[in-house]
Structures are given as structure tokens and as C-alpha cells.
């Protein structure tokens, strides 16, 4: 199971980084989303993997999984929505102002 999770994180990271390296805003945002998944899952697994032991206190359970990474990741998921939304809005704004959604500055725009 550990191997499956680790490889899934790796695949999401690789795909995310490849997309972030594209030249248009939309694929970069997709890439950021994939990286967000990868990072959140990575943070989550720092509590190690446990099955059938949610951190809900009860009398008849043998043990609980680590609650702390879950609390951290929960807010990270919500905050990453905010981040994605701001990125989307900026991409949209750039496209509507400039007429294209390229992310790299040309020399003319750079003032050279």
C-alpha cells in the first residue's frame, strides 16, 4: 500500500511539474492543482498510513491514526482553493487585458 501511495504522489508531482513548465496560463493552473494534490497527500502521509482507525474517539477501537497531519492538510486544502482561485482570476485578467494567455514576458514587454 505504501508503494502505491508513494508512486501516486510521484506521478502527480511529475505531471504537475510538466504542466507548470508549459507556456500558457491554463495548463500552469492545472499543474498547480496537481502539485497541490501531491503536496497535500505528502503532508498527510507524514502521519504514516493506517486503515480503519479514524481519529474519532470511541470506546471500542484499538487505536487511532495520527490526527495532526489531517488537521494541517484540512486547512491546506481550503487555502489551496483560495490560491487556485486567485491564480485563475489573474490568468483571466491577463488574458482579457492582453488578448493572450502567455505567461512569459517577451523582450518588448520586459522593457529591453
Amino acid at each position, binding site marked *: 500500500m505504501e508503494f502505491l501511495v508513494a508512486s501516486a504522489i510521484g506521478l502527480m*508531482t511529475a505531471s504537475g511539474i510538466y504542466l507548470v513548465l508549459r507556456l500558457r496560463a491554463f495548463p500552469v493552473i492545472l499543474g498547480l492543482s496537481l502539485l497541490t494534490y501531491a503536496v497535500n497527500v505528502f503532508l498527510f502521509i507524514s502521519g504514516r498510513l493506517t486503515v480503519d482507525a479514524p481519529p474519532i474517539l470511541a470506546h471500542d477501537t484499538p487505536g487511532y491514526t495520527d490526527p495532526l497531519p489531517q488537521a494541517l492538510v484540512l486547512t491546506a486544502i481550503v487555502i489551496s482553493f483560495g490560491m487556485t482561485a486567485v491564480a485563475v482570476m489573474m490568468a483571466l485578467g491577463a488574458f*482579457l487585458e492582453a488578448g493572450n494567455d502567455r505567461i512569459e514576458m517577451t523582450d518588448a514587454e520586459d522593457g529591453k
Partner: protein
Amino acid sequence: MSLALIAALPFLGALLPGLMIRAGRTACAMATGSATALALIGLLLHAPAVLRGEVVQARFDWMPGLGLNANFFLDGLGLLFAGLILGIGLLIILYARFYLAKTDPMGQFYTYLMLFQGAMVGIVLSDNILLLLIFWELTSLSSFLLIGYWKHLPEGRQGARMALAVTGTGGLAMIAGMLILGGIVGSYDLSVILTQKEAIQASDWYLPALILILLGAFTKSAQFPFHFWLPHAMAAPTPVSAYLHSATMVKAGLFLMARMWPVLAGTDAWFYIVATTGLVTMVMAAKIALFKDDLKALLAFSTVSHLGLITMLLGFGTAEAAAVAVFHIINHATFKAALFMSAGIIDHEAHTRDIKRLGGLRTLMPITFTIVTLAALSMAGIPPLNGFLSKEMMLEEATHTVWAGIPWLFAVLATIGAMFSVAYSFRLIGHVFLGPVRDDYPHKPHDPGFGLWAAPAALAVLVVLIGVAPMTMVGDLVTVVAGAVTGGDVTIKISHWHGLVPALWMSVAAVGAGLILFGAHLRLDALWLAAPRPEAKAIFDALVDGIAALSHGVTARLHDGALSRYFVIFTLGVLGAGWLAWSEGGHVPGLRNVLPIPGVALAGWLLLAVCSVLVAVLHRERLLALVVIGVVGLIVSVGFIYLSAPDLALTQISVEVVTIVLMLLALNFLPKTTPRESSTARRLRDIAVAGAAGLSTAALALALMMRDFAFPTISDYHLANSYSGGGGTNVVNVILVDFRGYDTFGEIIVLGIAGLLIFALAEALLRGAANKRLLEWVPELPKSGDRHPLMMVVAGRVALPITLMVGVYIFLRGHNEPGGGFIAGLIVAIALVTQFMASGFAWTQARQRVDYHAFIGFGVVIAAATGLGSWLAARPFLTSNFGYFRIPPFDKFELATAALFDLGVFLTVIGAVMLTLASLSRIAIRAGETVNTTAMDNDPSQPAPAKGGH
């Protein structure tokens, strides 16, 4: 008065000028001066104790973990310097009142001056070297403001920049040196460091620490080769020059050398670096001073020369020489500040400071003449004035000093330095005041009012008094200060007559030769002007330009405007660092037991893996890529459920929904496809970088999961105390709203700001160039003829109360079961946004009387109020409380303040999410999206409209 208060008074006083300037310039000066006077009185109250040899202390813990404490102490050395800073500061405030023109912003001047004064007092009273460094940097910053006070003068701005660059760089070096010193001793308290001479001098780090600390001291005290900034700083108003550049700031370097003298001095390295630098500075600057025509430039180089003299004395490393250094610090402060202020008076009255345009002022300005003559004769070392006494003692020390086996070197060069000093002092008197009265002054000079000459006159009186009766005036002070510098008992005997000792003959020779030089000045000046000499400013500017060009070049290569380039560099950098850590870390495979892989998990993994790769493969078809990435998000949610994280699963799946809706809204206005732009080679490079990063991340994740915790986990504490301390059984929720409530509070604020930012961006877009584009918008894809289908409208409306109910339920149970404010907020947002999709944004908005901004605002306020409420119970911010109640016929239930906090979270999440989606929808309306007034396009109770009627 507490030492901390003495150090704080000037800073508090810095607030007064801004308040008082409207009451007039005199009131402003008096208010400012009263703060300084109060601090001076407080200091003098300690003087009897200090002169008895006691050390006054005040200690406050600031950051004890770092060794940074607000510890102050006052010994003889601190008393002398603090007395100089506050006493001369008071005179400068008086002088500046009459010096500054009506058009100069006086309030600003006094504020800067007081900031500087506070920083200086802080330096000399600090008992903690980290605290000292903070004050040290503050003097650099405040002197920058003071030198550049006349912002309209380019020389002022350039001089300020140069001073900041040189002293700031030295300050950075000194930070490193001080940290090394603290590292050797194991404490950052001066009173501890000063007792550790053997440990410090035996350490391998002694020499690096010495050089770094001296760099700080030399740059501040304008020692060769860093002396060049001081003459350029003379573009400052004269009160600043008199205060910073003669009496106080440039002496900070000397203070530091004197302070560190007990532990750093006495070695060969100290002697050769410090004494040699001082000697070179003294002779060279004295020579340059002779040929300067600007009064302030002459005084500036003379100051550099005298600072060199004092540095040299400290460098000798003997207790006697250190005592002479202390005595000369006092004498120099008196005569040089008087001379600077007089130079300002001459400039003020004659409208020039060029010596070649002056002369014959003796009868026109008799008072100024008297002051300057006394001070300049003291500077030349003419008996019986105070400058004579310390110069004589300096020459005496020089004769005892052997440099690299040469016994006469110091004696001869010191005499030459004294000779130049005599020559320029006489030139100051002779070429400015003596000679015939001229008729071509730029302005008819006469003595100024009492206010302007009172301060220099007071100092001139001191020059005479100390000169005539040195032991009565300063004998005790010099003894105590020299004792503090050397850390031992020193007996001081200051007298005018030592017998026919070599120093006497050296002194006579210096005066004689100096007079000859003065007489031959005209011819020497011609030679000087004809000879080539390095121009320090040009060299400095070339250096600065070179460094700026280098950094610009590096930046331009790395940051050429291509985002993907930074990202590749960053990724490769992280990979390299990881590789280094892995290859040097001694990797051992982890041995933790692995979980079994059931079939369903394998199926999920396959789906996730395929879809992750598919997003990259299909990304040119944007809509398709969005669908595929949605699958990835869903599998991640399912994975969270499987791995015992129900809260995460609920959050992930609801965030997934709003994110996809958001992206769909945006995609409506973006191109639907991505063109193929990068070359095959570039794509292969990107695949390689991405592949390497993915592989390393996977390896890191696996290595992490195969090991147990390296440190005892704090999670057990949370599990154990969640119910008893937080009153909830859902530990994740209790952590969010209770244990780590402060974090959550910060996070909802961030989320709220993100929502407001998006709203502001949309506002800007709807006003700027984008607006025109939106008004002319032609949809790329044909619109659906049935945008608000009957089935969806009905289903959405039926679902609304149910979904809201679910939201409330999830919220209420959150403390004990999976759920809580975050998830409930997202669910309610989804319920509302479903209405947007089903019935249209405008239709929904028209029926909704709440403002999303208010949701964010109330959310944050409720959360904050809950936190503040715990203050009423005298508990720390955000301490929660809970209790169990029973109202028949219901079962027992719990009420917790944490639920109130969670309500704040809930409202903020709804507000932020809805504000984001609403902002995007507003853009759609501007682009010509029609507003439907009826809920459905095809209202079954109405006759069907014509097709394509939108």
C-alpha cells in the same frame, strides 16, 4: 532613573517635534531639548556612583532563548560617552534652532536627530552585544536620514548613500564578528565576555572575530582606507556635522575598540592592525586637511586625523596609552564641535565656507574669532589648552613604542602628524580671520545672535578650563574611564610640565615645522594642486557601478522574464540539494511493516495514475483535461476515506466541486485549446525534469512511510486531551478549533483576503481595457438553446433546503463526528452555486439579500470575539470552554465556545467561496450573458419562445 529609560527617552523625544512644530520653532526646540535634558539629568544622577567605581545595571529578558536581552550597564566609559552624546546633543539642539532656515522642515530634523541620539545612547549603555548591534545599525540608518536631510542637494543624497554603504557594510562585518565572539564565550552579555580574555585570545576564531569587529569600528570611525565617506558626509547641515561627525557617531568605532579593549587588545595582531591603521590615518588625513579650502572639509579631514590618533593610542595596547586615548576623546569632542559650529556660523553669515574667499573676519566677527582661535590653538596643541596636554602625552607614548623592531618610526611619524595639525590649525586662524578686511564677501559678515554662538562658546570655555586645571576638571573622570577601558586600576597624572623629556622637543619641533609649512602654504598648495591624486568618490562610484552591473547581469540571466525558466532552475536546485543530502546521509532502508494491497485500492491507484498522466497528455484540450483532473481529485478523496481520514475526504470532495465550477467559469473566457508552442527538445527536457522530480518525490515519500517517527509525536497529547480538554471526540476538529485555533484564525483571514482580492481584481477588470474586450465579446462556442433546463431547475430547488440542512447538520456534529465549519461552509456554498448553474446568476442574486463581504467580515469578527471572550474569564486568547446541558424533553447536549469559533470559520468559508464565484459570474454578465427574469427558459405554464432567442 533606570538606564533603560535613559536610552528610551530620546526615542520618546523623537515623537515630540512632530507634535510641537505647529506651536512654533522655539517651542519645538524646547520640547525636544527637554527630553534630552531629562535623560542627561537621569544620567548625571548615576554619576557619583559610577565615579566611586560602581557599575549601574538594568536587566530585562527579551528573547532569552536567543541570548538577546535588553540589558544595560553604566560604567565609566559608558558615562563619558553618554555624557558627551547627551550634553553635546543639548547644545546642538540649541544651535540648530538658530541655524536652520525658516524653509527647512525643523520637526523632521529634530526627529531624526533624536532617533540618532537614542541609538547612540543605546550603543554606549548596552550590556548585550546583540542589543548593541541593533543600536549600531540604527545609528547608520538615522545618520543616513540626517546626512541626506537637504533632499534637494545631490551632494547630500550621494553623501548619505556613501556613508550608509560604507558604515552599513562595516556593520554587517561586525555582526559576524560579534556572533563569533559570543560563540567563543557562550554568552552575548558584555559583562561576561569582558571577563574571558584568555579564552578569546586562545581561540582559533580570535583573528577572524578581531578583523570583522575592527572592520565595523574602522568604517564607523572613518579609518584608512574607509575614511573617504566622512568628507562627503559634510554635505549635511552643520549641526549634523558637528554632532555626528565630530562628537558622537564617528566616535562609536572608538567606543567599540575601547569597550572591547580588555579582551581583544594586547596581542601582536591587535597592535599591528590597530596602531598601524591609526598612524597611517592620522598622518595622511592631517596632510590632506592642510590643502582643503572648504572649511568643513578641512575640519572633516582633521577629524579623521584625530580619530586616527586615538585609534593608534588604543592600538598600543598599554594601559597608559588607553588613558591618554580617553583624555583625547574628551578634548577632541570639545574643540572640534566648537570649530564645526563656528564654521557653520561663518557659512551662515558670510554665505561661503571657502577659505580662499575669506580672511580679515577678525574685526567683523570678534566673538566667533575668539571661539575659533581658542579651539584651533587647542587643536594645534599649544599650551596651556587641553589639546596640548593630550598631544604631549600621545607623543610621550609614541616614543615608547617599537614597530617591527624600529624604535623611532612611531615617534617620527607622530611628530610629522602633529606638524601638519599645527599647520592647518594656524591656517584656519590666519587665512580666515587675520589679514586685511576684504570687500568681496558674498555677504557682509558680522557676529550672529547669542543663540547661535552660545553653544560653541560654552565648549570653548571648557577647552580653556580643562587646559588650565585638567586634574580638577576631568582627572577623576579620566581615571574612572581609563579603569573601565583597561579593566584595571590606572593612575593618571596630567600636568603641563614633564621636564625636558623627548616629547617636549618633539612638540617644539612640530610647532616650528608647522609654522614653516603654514608660511609656505601658497607654494605648497600649487604643488598639491598640480600633483595627481586618487579621487575616492570616483573609485567608490566605479566600485558600486561594477557591483550593480554584476548583480544586474546575474539577475538578467536567471530572471529573464520566462517563468518556466525560474521553475526549472528551482526544481533542479531542489533536486541537487536532495541528491547531496541523500548521497551523504548514509541511507538505510526503512523497516516498517507495509499494509496489504486490496483489489479496490489497486483499481483506484490505476485510475489515479492513468488520469494524472492523461492530464499532461491531454492538456491542449482544456475541457477534457479539466474532466480528467476532476477524476484525480475524486480518487484522492476516496483515498482519504480509505486511509482513515473522513474529514479530509469530505473537505477534498467539496473543494473539488467548487474548484471545477470555478475553472469552468474561467474557461468560458479563455481559449479552449492550448497551441503547440514548445519544441520537441524542450518538451523532452521538461519531461526529464518532471520525471526526475516525480521519482525523487515518490522515493522520499516511500522512505518516509517506511520509517517510524524520528522524534516522539505530539499527537498522543492531542488524542489524550481532545475530549477532556476540548470537549470533542473528533480530534481533527478539536485541533482546528481549539488546540491550534490561532492557526485556524489566521487561515480564515487569509481565505477572506483571497476572496476580497478576487473581488477587487474583478472590479479592476470591469473598469480597464478588459472591459472593452468583454463588451465586444463574441462567444467561441454556440450557446445551448436550453441553458436552464427544467429538470435541473426543479431538482436544484428541491435540493436547496435539503443541502442546507445537511450543511447545518455537518456543522453541528463537527465537534464529535467528521464535519465542522470548513466542510459545512463548502457544502452550503455548493448548495448556493447550484442555484447559479440551474437558474442563472442574476436570477439567484435578485433573490438573495445577503452580501458575501458581510459573511467574510462577520465570520472573522465572530471568531475574533470568541477568542477575546476568553479574556473576560481571565484566560489566554482563544481558550475554549464547554459544558453539558439538558432541556427536557431532549437528551443531554453539549455547548462549547469552540462551536462559536467554528461558526466564524463556517461564515468566512461561505463568504470567500461565494465572493469568488460571484466575481467571475459578474464578468460573464458584462460579456453579454443575458439575464433571465424567469426561472426557466422553457416555463411550462407559458407558451414556448422562439428558438435561439437569446
